[in-house]
């Protein structure tokens, strides 16, 4: 479903909290909003009461509603939020980042903050695991890949390493380099 111009303008106004950074978070929120809509509708049909008791929602949805000043008890607000989330899911740029180990939520929030402040406020992040990276990360944008790992850094500085090895080899050949004798056991 293609969002309209008014919805697009609403999309621009919506703010994504930093705790919501992955496409799966958006999908989960959309599903939760659907469920919430259904539950509220069923509740209204059953109770016929004017006062609505809002079912319990997740922390992420609460945060999203608070940040965007959305009243989840209002049907129009929910629909607006759902539409905005659907538009984000459809249009937001997705960046894949690989790390050597599983990142914590706080770490990912900081990464998401940087991306949304420096590039696009609706950037979504997917996380991959690649132990060979050791230090750093590998960022894959829609069309490019940025290897910010230690291996790539070493590769860039291979000339320096080669010159160091050559220097060491010359020292060994000329006899100036003498291996350091290890201290006897028991002496540090």
């Amino acid at each position, binding site marked *: 479903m293609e969002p309209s111009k008014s919805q697009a303008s609403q999309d621009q106004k919506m703010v994504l909290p930093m705790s919501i950074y992955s496409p799966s978070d958006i999908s989960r929120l959309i599903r939760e909003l659907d469920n919430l809509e259904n539950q509220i509708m069923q509740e209204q049909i059953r109770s016929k009461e004017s006062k609505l008791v809002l079912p319990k929602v997740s922390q992420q949805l609460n945060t999203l509603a608070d940040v965007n000043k959305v009243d989840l008890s209002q049907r129009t607000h929910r629909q607006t939020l759902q539409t905005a989330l659907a538009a984000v899911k459809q*249009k*937001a*740029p997705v*960046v894949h980042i690989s*790390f*050597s*180990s599983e*990142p*914590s939520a*706080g*770490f990912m929030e*900081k*990464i998401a903050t*940087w*991306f949304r402040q*420096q*590039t*696009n406020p609706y*950037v979504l992040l997917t996380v991959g695991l690649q*132990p*060979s990276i*050791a*230090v*750093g*990360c590998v*960022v894959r*944008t*829609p*069309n*490019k890949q*940025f290897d*910010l*790992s*230690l*291996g*790539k850094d*070493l*590769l860039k500085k*291979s000339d320096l*390493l*080669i010159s160091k090895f050559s220097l060491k080899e010359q020292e060994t050949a000329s006899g100036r380099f003498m291996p350091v004798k290890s201290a006897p056991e028991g002496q540090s």
Partner: protein
Amino acid sequence: MILVAFILMGVAFALIFAKLDQVNKGQKKVVSYEDQTKQEVEHVFDNAFREEMRNRGRLHFEKIIGENAMFLQQDLRLTTSQLNDYMKNEITVKLKDEFAKYEKSIMDAKTMAMDSIKKTNDAIEEERAVVSQEVQKQILVEKKQIIDKFEKNMADIINHYVVEAIGNQIDLNDQLEHILGDLEANKEAIREDIGHGA
């Protein structure tokens, strides 16, 4: 010498028979005194005298034979000695010639063997030099390949070493500043690509 001995023996026998013949002729001429002469002859040249003459002739003949045998023996010894010397000289000369030829053959064979060994050594030396150059060239090529391969994979090797050595000890939170620095360094490219892709 043997021939001379036989001739001398013949002359001696001829003289003896001539004397006997003269005695017989004198008996025929003096018939009157024939008997007397015959008796005297018989008396002078009796059987004992004849036997003595025969013995003397035999002894003389034996003496001559012995002398001739001695001469013959001396001559034989001399001939044998000369023959020995001659044979010795001839054999020596022949042996010298043969030895000289043999020595010459040995020297020729030795020269040929030395030439052959020298040629073989030269060929081996040339081959060794060629092989040595080839081995040196191969060693340099292999060394260059190894160095190139090492330089090409050096970053991976060090990275692998770092991962194995301290991979588990580096926390992502400690890397945050470094990662944000790298992102900041590539900010323009990331922003441009995200802008185009969005």
